[in-house]
Protein backbone atom coordinates (compact mmCIF):
# COMPACT_ATOMS: atom_id res chain seq x y z
CA UNK A 1 0.00 0.00 0.00
CA UNK A 2 1.36 3.35 -0.96
CA UNK A 3 2.40 5.58 1.92
CA UNK A 4 0.07 8.51 2.43
CA UNK A 5 1.88 11.79 2.07
CA UNK A 6 1.62 14.45 4.72
CA UNK A 7 1.57 17.85 3.14
CA UNK A 8 3.09 20.83 4.90
CA UNK A 9 2.02 23.13 2.08
CA UNK A 10 -0.63 22.20 -0.43
CA UNK A 11 -3.24 23.66 -2.67
CA UNK A 12 -6.60 23.24 -0.97
CA UNK A 13 -10.16 23.45 -2.14
CA UNK A 14 -10.29 26.88 -0.54
CA UNK A 15 -7.18 28.27 -2.17
CA UNK A 16 -7.83 26.70 -5.57
CA UNK A 17 -11.43 27.83 -5.57
CA UNK A 18 -10.42 31.39 -4.68
CA UNK A 19 -7.75 31.40 -7.36
CA UNK A 20 -10.19 30.45 -10.07
CA UNK A 21 -12.90 32.76 -8.82
CA UNK A 22 -15.16 30.35 -6.98
CA UNK A 23 -16.39 30.18 -3.44
CA UNK A 24 -16.09 26.92 -1.57
CA UNK A 25 -19.47 25.85 -0.26
CA UNK A 26 -17.78 24.98 2.98
CA UNK A 27 -14.45 26.24 4.23
CA UNK A 28 -11.81 23.61 4.68
CA UNK A 29 -9.18 23.44 7.34
CA UNK A 30 -5.48 23.76 7.74
CA UNK A 31 -2.24 22.11 8.80
CA UNK A 32 -1.06 18.89 7.18
CA UNK A 33 -1.92 15.75 9.08
CA UNK A 34 -2.87 12.17 8.08
CA UNK A 35 -6.30 10.54 8.48
CA UNK A 36 -7.81 12.04 5.40
CA UNK A 37 -11.20 11.06 4.14
CA UNK A 38 -11.80 11.64 0.48
CA UNK A 39 -14.88 13.58 -0.37
CA UNK A 40 -17.35 12.25 -2.84
CA UNK A 41 -18.00 14.23 -5.97
CA UNK A 42 -21.05 16.37 -5.42
CA UNK A 43 -20.83 16.23 -1.65
CA UNK A 44 -21.68 19.35 0.36
CA UNK A 45 -17.99 20.15 0.54
CA UNK A 46 -17.66 20.29 -3.21
CA UNK A 47 -16.87 23.66 -4.61
CA UNK A 48 -19.77 25.79 -5.61
CA UNK A 49 -18.76 28.24 -8.25
CA UNK A 50 -20.31 31.66 -8.42
CA UNK A 51 -19.32 31.92 -12.07
CA UNK A 52 -18.35 29.42 -14.70
CA UNK A 53 -14.69 28.65 -14.23
CA UNK A 54 -14.50 26.54 -17.32
CA UNK A 55 -16.58 25.64 -20.28
CA UNK A 56 -16.35 22.06 -19.09
CA UNK A 57 -17.86 22.68 -15.67
CA UNK A 58 -21.26 21.22 -15.08
CA UNK A 59 -24.22 23.61 -15.08
CA UNK A 60 -26.74 22.77 -12.40
CA UNK A 61 -30.22 24.33 -12.49
CA UNK A 62 -30.79 26.79 -9.66
CA UNK A 63 -27.28 26.27 -8.37
CA UNK A 64 -25.17 28.00 -10.93
CA UNK A 65 -22.07 26.15 -11.81
CA UNK A 66 -20.94 23.35 -9.57
CA UNK A 67 -17.63 21.65 -9.84
CA UNK A 68 -15.15 20.16 -7.55
CA UNK A 69 -11.62 21.40 -7.68
CA UNK A 70 -9.55 18.29 -7.59
CA UNK A 71 -10.21 15.55 -5.14
CA UNK A 72 -9.87 17.06 -1.76
CA UNK A 73 -9.25 15.04 1.32
CA UNK A 74 -10.30 16.45 4.64
CA UNK A 75 -9.94 15.23 8.17
CA UNK A 76 -13.56 15.83 9.07
CA UNK A 77 -13.16 15.33 12.80
CA UNK A 78 -10.30 17.74 13.20
CA UNK A 79 -11.63 20.02 10.51
CA UNK A 80 -8.22 20.39 9.01
CA UNK A 81 -5.70 19.11 6.54
CA UNK A 82 -7.08 19.25 3.06
CA UNK A 83 -4.87 17.61 0.53
CA UNK A 84 -4.92 18.15 -3.18
CA UNK A 85 -4.27 15.12 -5.31
CA UNK A 86 -3.23 16.32 -8.74
CA UNK A 87 -2.65 12.76 -9.86
CA UNK A 88 -6.08 11.51 -8.86
CA UNK A 89 -8.63 13.78 -10.43
CA UNK A 90 -11.47 13.69 -12.82
CA UNK A 91 -11.89 15.72 -15.95
CA UNK A 92 -9.23 18.33 -16.49
CA UNK A 93 -10.48 21.73 -17.43
CA UNK A 94 -8.54 24.71 -18.66
CA UNK A 95 -9.03 27.85 -16.64
CA UNK A 96 -8.80 31.28 -18.12
CA UNK A 97 -5.19 32.40 -17.68
CA UNK A 98 -6.25 35.99 -17.24
CA UNK A 99 -7.65 35.25 -13.79
CA UNK A 100 -4.24 35.63 -12.24
CA UNK A 101 -0.73 35.74 -13.60
CA UNK A 102 0.46 33.35 -10.96
CA UNK A 103 -2.32 30.83 -11.08
CA UNK A 104 -1.68 27.48 -12.65
CA UNK A 105 -3.40 26.94 -15.95
CA UNK A 106 -5.39 23.91 -15.01
CA UNK A 107 -8.05 23.16 -12.50
CA UNK A 108 -9.94 19.96 -12.29
CA UNK A 109 -13.62 19.30 -12.14
CA UNK A 110 -15.16 15.90 -11.57
CA UNK A 111 -17.01 13.83 -14.05
CA UNK A 112 -20.54 14.98 -14.60
CA UNK A 113 -22.51 15.57 -11.44
CA UNK A 114 -25.02 12.84 -10.91
Amino acid at each position, binding site marked *: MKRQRKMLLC*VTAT*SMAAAVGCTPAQPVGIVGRPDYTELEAGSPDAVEASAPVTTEATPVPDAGWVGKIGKVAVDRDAGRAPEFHPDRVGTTAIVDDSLSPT*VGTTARVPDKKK
Partner: protein
Amino acid sequence: MTRALFELEWLGGTTEHFFRRSRPEADAVPWGTLDLSRYAPDLLQAVRGSWTEVSMNEYRAVASFAEVIRALTDAMAPLDMIGMASGFLADEVLHTELAARVAMELGGAAPMTVDMDRFALRADLRLPAKLRANEVLLRVCCVGEAFAFGVGAPALKLASHPMIKAVSEIIMADEARHKRLGALYLEWASEDWDDAERARLSRVLEDTMKGLRTFWSGEPAEVKDGVTSRGFRVEHLHELGWLESARAIPLAREVALELLAPLEEHGVRLGDEARASLFG
Protein backbone atom coordinates in the same frame (compact mmCIF):
# COMPACT_ATOMS: atom_id res chain seq x y z
CA MET B 1 10.80 21.92 -18.92
CA THR B 2 8.59 20.29 -16.31
CA ARG B 3 6.38 22.50 -14.25
CA ALA B 4 4.76 21.26 -11.06
CA LEU B 5 2.57 22.76 -8.39
CA PHE B 6 4.61 24.25 -5.58
CA GLU B 7 3.66 22.06 -2.65
CA LEU B 8 5.79 20.74 0.20
CA GLU B 9 5.76 17.37 1.87
CA TRP B 10 6.52 16.76 5.54
CA LEU B 11 7.67 13.35 6.71
CA GLY B 12 7.43 13.77 10.49
CA GLY B 13 8.85 11.41 13.10
CA THR B 14 12.61 11.02 13.16
CA THR B 15 13.42 13.66 10.55
CA GLU B 16 11.20 16.20 12.27
CA HIS B 17 12.76 15.34 15.64
CA PHE B 18 16.31 15.99 14.46
CA PHE B 19 15.36 19.11 12.52
CA ARG B 20 13.52 20.50 15.53
CA ARG B 21 16.53 19.80 17.70
CA SER B 22 18.59 22.21 15.60
CA ARG B 23 15.81 24.72 14.92
CA PRO B 24 13.08 24.54 17.60
CA GLU B 25 11.67 28.03 17.00
CA ALA B 26 8.59 26.92 15.06
CA ASP B 27 7.07 25.38 18.17
CA ALA B 28 6.97 28.76 19.91
CA VAL B 29 4.82 30.41 17.22
CA PRO B 30 1.18 30.81 18.34
CA TRP B 31 -0.32 28.82 15.47
CA GLY B 32 -4.07 28.65 15.08
CA THR B 33 -4.73 32.15 16.35
CA LEU B 34 -5.79 33.85 13.11
CA ASP B 35 -9.46 34.76 12.89
CA LEU B 36 -10.04 34.58 9.15
CA SER B 37 -13.55 35.97 9.47
CA ARG B 38 -11.99 39.40 10.09
CA TYR B 39 -10.66 39.63 6.55
CA ALA B 40 -12.16 40.12 3.11
CA PRO B 41 -12.01 37.00 0.88
CA ASP B 42 -10.07 38.91 -1.78
CA LEU B 43 -7.52 39.98 0.78
CA LEU B 44 -7.14 36.42 2.04
CA GLN B 45 -6.62 35.21 -1.50
CA ALA B 46 -3.95 37.84 -2.13
CA VAL B 47 -2.16 37.19 1.13
CA ARG B 48 -2.27 33.42 0.59
CA GLY B 49 -0.47 34.11 -2.66
CA SER B 50 2.00 36.36 -0.92
CA TRP B 51 2.90 33.83 1.78
CA THR B 52 3.06 31.02 -0.78
CA GLU B 53 5.57 33.15 -2.67
CA VAL B 54 7.52 33.77 0.53
CA SER B 55 7.68 30.03 1.11
CA MET B 56 8.76 29.47 -2.48
CA ASN B 57 11.44 32.15 -2.22
CA GLU B 58 12.74 30.72 1.03
CA TYR B 59 12.84 27.29 -0.59
CA ARG B 60 14.82 28.86 -3.42
CA ALA B 61 17.15 30.32 -0.77
CA VAL B 62 17.80 26.78 0.51
CA ALA B 63 19.11 25.90 -2.93
CA SER B 64 20.96 29.21 -3.21
CA PHE B 65 22.78 28.73 0.09
CA ALA B 66 23.70 25.20 -0.94
CA GLU B 67 25.35 26.89 -3.93
CA VAL B 68 26.98 29.48 -1.67
CA ILE B 69 28.49 26.80 0.54
CA ARG B 70 29.74 24.85 -2.46
CA ALA B 71 31.22 27.99 -4.01
CA LEU B 72 32.95 29.00 -0.76
CA THR B 73 34.34 25.50 -0.39
CA ASP B 74 35.60 25.38 -3.98
CA ALA B 75 37.23 28.78 -3.47
CA MET B 76 38.88 27.57 -0.25
CA ALA B 77 37.36 30.40 1.72
CA PRO B 78 38.18 30.54 5.45
CA LEU B 79 36.72 27.49 7.12
CA ASP B 80 34.83 29.46 9.76
CA MET B 81 33.16 31.43 6.97
CA ILE B 82 32.03 28.15 5.40
CA GLY B 83 30.84 27.06 8.84
CA MET B 84 28.87 30.28 9.30
CA ALA B 85 27.18 29.84 5.93
CA SER B 86 26.39 26.19 6.63
CA GLY B 87 24.04 27.15 9.43
CA PHE B 88 22.05 29.29 7.00
CA LEU B 89 20.76 26.22 5.18
CA ALA B 90 18.74 25.13 8.19
CA ASP B 91 17.61 28.75 8.64
CA GLU B 92 16.16 28.80 5.15
CA VAL B 93 14.49 25.43 5.60
CA LEU B 94 12.85 26.77 8.75
CA HIS B 95 11.75 29.94 6.96
CA THR B 96 10.22 27.82 4.22
CA GLU B 97 8.32 25.84 6.81
CA LEU B 98 7.11 28.93 8.68
CA ALA B 99 5.87 30.69 5.56
CA ALA B 100 4.19 27.50 4.36
CA ARG B 101 2.38 27.12 7.65
CA VAL B 102 1.19 30.72 7.51
CA ALA B 103 -0.16 30.10 4.00
CA MET B 104 -1.98 27.02 5.29
CA GLU B 105 -3.39 28.96 8.22
CA LEU B 106 -4.75 31.40 5.65
CA GLY B 107 -6.56 28.60 3.84
CA GLY B 108 -3.93 26.87 1.71
CA ALA B 109 -1.29 27.45 -0.90
CA ALA B 110 -2.09 29.58 -3.89
CA PRO B 111 -1.74 27.35 -6.94
CA MET B 112 1.63 28.29 -8.40
CA THR B 113 3.81 26.15 -10.58
CA VAL B 114 7.58 25.90 -10.60
CA ASP B 115 10.15 24.45 -12.96
CA MET B 116 12.63 22.83 -10.61
CA ASP B 117 15.23 22.47 -13.36
CA ARG B 118 15.44 26.26 -13.55
CA PHE B 119 14.30 27.13 -10.07
CA ALA B 120 17.41 28.46 -8.37
CA LEU B 121 20.82 29.94 -9.01
CA ARG B 122 23.51 27.63 -10.37
CA ALA B 123 27.14 28.64 -10.49
CA ASP B 124 28.76 28.78 -13.90
CA LEU B 125 31.25 25.91 -13.78
CA ARG B 126 33.17 27.34 -16.71
CA LEU B 127 34.48 30.05 -14.37
CA PRO B 128 37.42 29.54 -11.99
CA ALA B 129 36.39 28.72 -8.42
CA LYS B 130 37.10 32.13 -6.91
CA LEU B 131 35.20 33.95 -9.63
CA ARG B 132 32.26 31.59 -9.12
CA ALA B 133 32.27 32.39 -5.41
CA ASN B 134 32.44 36.13 -6.08
CA GLU B 135 29.40 35.95 -8.31
CA VAL B 136 27.34 33.63 -6.13
CA LEU B 137 28.00 35.60 -2.94
CA LEU B 138 27.25 38.86 -4.71
CA ARG B 139 23.92 37.61 -6.05
CA VAL B 140 22.74 35.73 -2.98
CA CYS B 141 24.09 37.60 0.05
CA CYS B 142 25.12 41.10 -1.02
CA VAL B 143 21.97 41.69 -3.08
CA GLY B 144 19.29 39.03 -2.45
CA GLU B 145 19.52 38.71 1.32
CA ALA B 146 20.29 42.40 1.81
CA PHE B 147 17.18 43.32 -0.16
CA ALA B 148 15.00 40.77 1.64
CA PHE B 149 16.12 42.06 5.01
CA GLY B 150 15.70 45.69 4.01
CA VAL B 151 12.13 45.35 2.82
CA GLY B 152 11.14 42.79 5.44
CA ALA B 153 12.26 44.66 8.55
CA PRO B 154 9.76 47.55 8.24
CA ALA B 155 6.93 45.10 7.59
CA LEU B 156 7.93 43.32 10.78
CA LYS B 157 7.74 46.54 12.75
CA LEU B 158 4.15 47.00 11.57
CA ALA B 159 3.07 43.38 12.01
CA SER B 160 0.53 43.36 14.79
CA HIS B 161 -0.84 39.83 14.80
CA PRO B 162 1.13 37.67 17.26
CA MET B 163 1.48 34.72 14.86
CA ILE B 164 2.67 36.82 11.92
CA LYS B 165 4.92 38.86 14.18
CA ALA B 166 6.54 35.74 15.66
CA VAL B 167 7.19 34.28 12.21
CA SER B 168 8.59 37.56 10.88
CA GLU B 169 10.85 38.01 13.89
CA ILE B 170 12.43 34.59 13.39
CA ILE B 171 12.97 35.19 9.69
CA MET B 172 14.32 38.72 10.04
CA ALA B 173 16.78 37.80 12.81
CA ASP B 174 18.29 35.21 10.50
CA GLU B 175 18.28 37.41 7.39
CA ALA B 176 20.38 40.00 9.21
CA ARG B 177 23.13 37.38 9.66
CA HIS B 178 22.78 36.24 6.06
CA LYS B 179 23.28 39.77 4.83
CA ARG B 180 26.33 40.09 7.10
CA LEU B 181 27.99 37.16 5.36
CA GLY B 182 28.03 39.14 2.12
CA ALA B 183 29.92 42.02 3.76
CA LEU B 184 32.39 39.64 5.40
CA TYR B 185 33.02 37.89 2.12
CA LEU B 186 33.61 41.19 0.34
CA GLU B 187 36.21 42.16 2.95
CA TRP B 188 38.00 38.86 2.53
CA ALA B 189 37.82 38.44 -1.23
CA SER B 190 37.91 41.89 -2.78
CA GLU B 191 41.56 42.62 -2.17
CA ASP B 192 42.40 40.03 -4.83
CA TRP B 193 40.09 41.54 -7.45
CA ASP B 194 41.51 43.26 -10.49
CA ASP B 195 39.74 45.79 -12.70
CA ALA B 196 38.43 43.10 -15.04
CA GLU B 197 36.81 41.23 -12.16
CA ARG B 198 35.29 44.40 -10.75
CA ALA B 199 33.86 45.17 -14.19
CA ARG B 200 32.49 41.64 -14.52
CA LEU B 201 30.91 41.79 -11.08
CA SER B 202 29.40 45.16 -11.93
CA ARG B 203 27.64 43.49 -14.85
CA VAL B 204 26.49 40.71 -12.53
CA LEU B 205 25.16 43.34 -10.15
CA GLU B 206 23.20 45.02 -12.92
CA ASP B 207 21.72 41.71 -13.98
CA THR B 208 20.73 40.86 -10.39
CA MET B 209 19.18 44.26 -9.82
CA LYS B 210 17.12 43.92 -12.98
CA GLY B 211 15.53 40.87 -11.41
CA LEU B 212 14.40 42.96 -8.45
CA ARG B 213 13.25 46.04 -10.36
CA THR B 214 9.64 44.89 -10.40
CA PHE B 215 9.46 45.64 -6.67
CA TRP B 216 9.92 49.39 -7.14
CA SER B 217 8.86 50.02 -10.72
CA GLY B 218 5.10 50.21 -10.16
CA GLU B 219 3.05 53.23 -9.26
CA PRO B 220 2.04 53.30 -5.58
CA ALA B 221 -1.73 53.12 -5.20
CA GLU B 222 -3.50 55.73 -3.16
CA VAL B 223 -4.72 54.97 0.34
CA LYS B 224 -7.86 56.77 1.46
CA ASP B 225 -9.20 56.65 4.99
CA GLY B 226 -7.06 53.63 5.74
CA VAL B 227 -8.34 51.69 2.72
CA THR B 228 -6.28 50.79 -0.35
CA SER B 229 -7.47 51.20 -3.93
CA ARG B 230 -8.25 47.46 -3.96
CA GLY B 231 -10.52 47.95 -0.98
CA PHE B 232 -8.24 46.38 1.62
CA ARG B 233 -7.97 47.90 5.07
CA VAL B 234 -4.34 48.89 5.65
CA GLU B 235 -4.66 47.71 9.23
CA HIS B 236 -5.53 44.23 7.94
CA LEU B 237 -2.63 44.23 5.50
CA HIS B 238 -0.22 44.92 8.32
CA GLU B 239 -1.77 42.29 10.54
CA LEU B 240 -1.18 39.71 7.86
CA GLY B 241 2.40 40.76 7.16
CA TRP B 242 1.83 42.84 4.06
CA LEU B 243 2.64 46.42 3.19
CA GLU B 244 0.42 48.65 1.09
CA SER B 245 2.04 49.67 -2.21
CA ALA B 246 2.23 53.31 -1.10
CA ARG B 247 4.70 52.16 1.50
CA ALA B 248 6.21 49.08 -0.17
CA ILE B 249 7.25 50.58 -3.51
CA PRO B 250 9.24 53.56 -2.18
CA LEU B 251 10.74 51.30 0.48
CA ALA B 252 11.93 48.77 -2.11
CA ARG B 253 13.53 51.54 -4.13
CA GLU B 254 15.26 52.99 -1.08
CA VAL B 255 16.57 49.58 0.02
CA ALA B 256 17.82 48.79 -3.48
CA LEU B 257 19.75 52.07 -3.63
CA GLU B 258 21.16 51.58 -0.13
CA LEU B 259 22.56 48.13 -0.85
CA LEU B 260 24.65 49.56 -3.69
CA ALA B 261 26.79 51.73 -1.39
CA PRO B 262 28.91 49.02 0.27
CA LEU B 263 29.47 47.37 -3.09
CA GLU B 264 30.74 50.61 -4.56
CA GLU B 265 33.38 50.72 -1.83
CA HIS B 266 34.75 47.53 -3.36
CA GLY B 267 34.59 48.80 -6.92
CA VAL B 268 31.38 47.02 -7.91
CA ARG B 269 29.01 49.65 -9.21
CA LEU B 270 26.23 50.39 -11.64
CA GLY B 271 27.11 52.59 -14.59
CA ASP B 272 25.12 55.76 -15.19
CA GLU B 273 23.09 54.13 -17.94
CA ALA B 274 22.25 51.08 -15.83
CA ARG B 275 21.36 53.24 -12.86
CA ALA B 276 19.09 55.40 -14.98
CA SER B 277 17.47 52.35 -16.49
CA LEU B 278 16.85 50.78 -13.08
CA PHE B 279 15.88 53.84 -11.10
CA GLY B 280 15.19 56.56 -13.64
